[in-house]
């Protein structure tokens, strides 16, 4: 597969750049994501405590900005912090935001309202 013209957001990253899901300081779940596609899959299966831990530390937005290099997605995820979401409500919202972005990037949706 030719990945040269693929947006960076859709690429698979080396393991040192993957996102590693923790439930608290130093407690790694064994679940990681090396691409945005994998990220969406993993957030549906990981312990929801891990999503709460990372969202409110700003880890997701940081990974999306620095590794995925998708500032728009990073800002969308950061916005979720304002709603004080917990549990499955957080899981569903996070999944919806990232899935929507993926669809946009793969051309399955129209242009973003931010573009």
């Amino acid at each position, binding site marked *: 597969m030719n990945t040269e013209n693929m947006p960076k957001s859709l690429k698979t990253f080396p393991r040192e750049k993957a996102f590693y899901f923790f439930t608290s300081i*130093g407690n790694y779940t064994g679940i990681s994501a090396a691409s945005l596609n994998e990220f969406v899959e993993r957030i549906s299966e990981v312990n929801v405590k891990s999503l709460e831990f990372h969202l409110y530390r700003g880890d997701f937005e940081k990974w999306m900005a620095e590794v995925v290099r998708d500032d728009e997605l990073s800002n969308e995820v950061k916005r979720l912090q304002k709603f004080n979401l917990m549990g499955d409500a957080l899981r569903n919202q996070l999944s919806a935001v990232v899935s929507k972005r993926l669809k946009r990037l793969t051309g399955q949706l129209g242009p973003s309202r931010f573009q």
Partner: protein
Amino acid sequence: MKIKNDTLTLDATDLEILRALQKDARQTYASIGKRLGMAHSTVYDRIRRMEQHGIIKQYTTVVDGEKAGVKSITALMTIYTDPKESERVAEELSKAPKVLEVYTSLSEELLIIAKVAAENQEGLHAFIANYVAPLPGVLRIRTSIITKKFKETQFSIANDS
């Protein structure tokens, strides 16, 4: 003290010298010799041979970091690994300056236990997330931050319990 096939076998006098050094490694050969009733040159020779054979590994200083004003936290990591990769994981951990001690342990699963020090909780987490978790063969990690130390000592050859 006997040397056979390049292996040093210690006698009672060597053990006495080691006990003396473990109590106070700064004391002189003459002081040890006087206490044990032997010449300082004998003490010197025996210590040199124990150093050369790696029985005496190093002379170090035990620092109370808290009193020295060094802010740091210590944690114990239990790392569950793929058995095929555990040796390599342990070797990679051993290279990291933040990791103070590394052990492998066989319980229900193959584990690596490592003691790690960092400047604060954020530094600890960043190290584990960016360096330990990505190592091939790491399945999951449990970390316990040490809140209070009741005892820390090295193995002593002294007879008292």
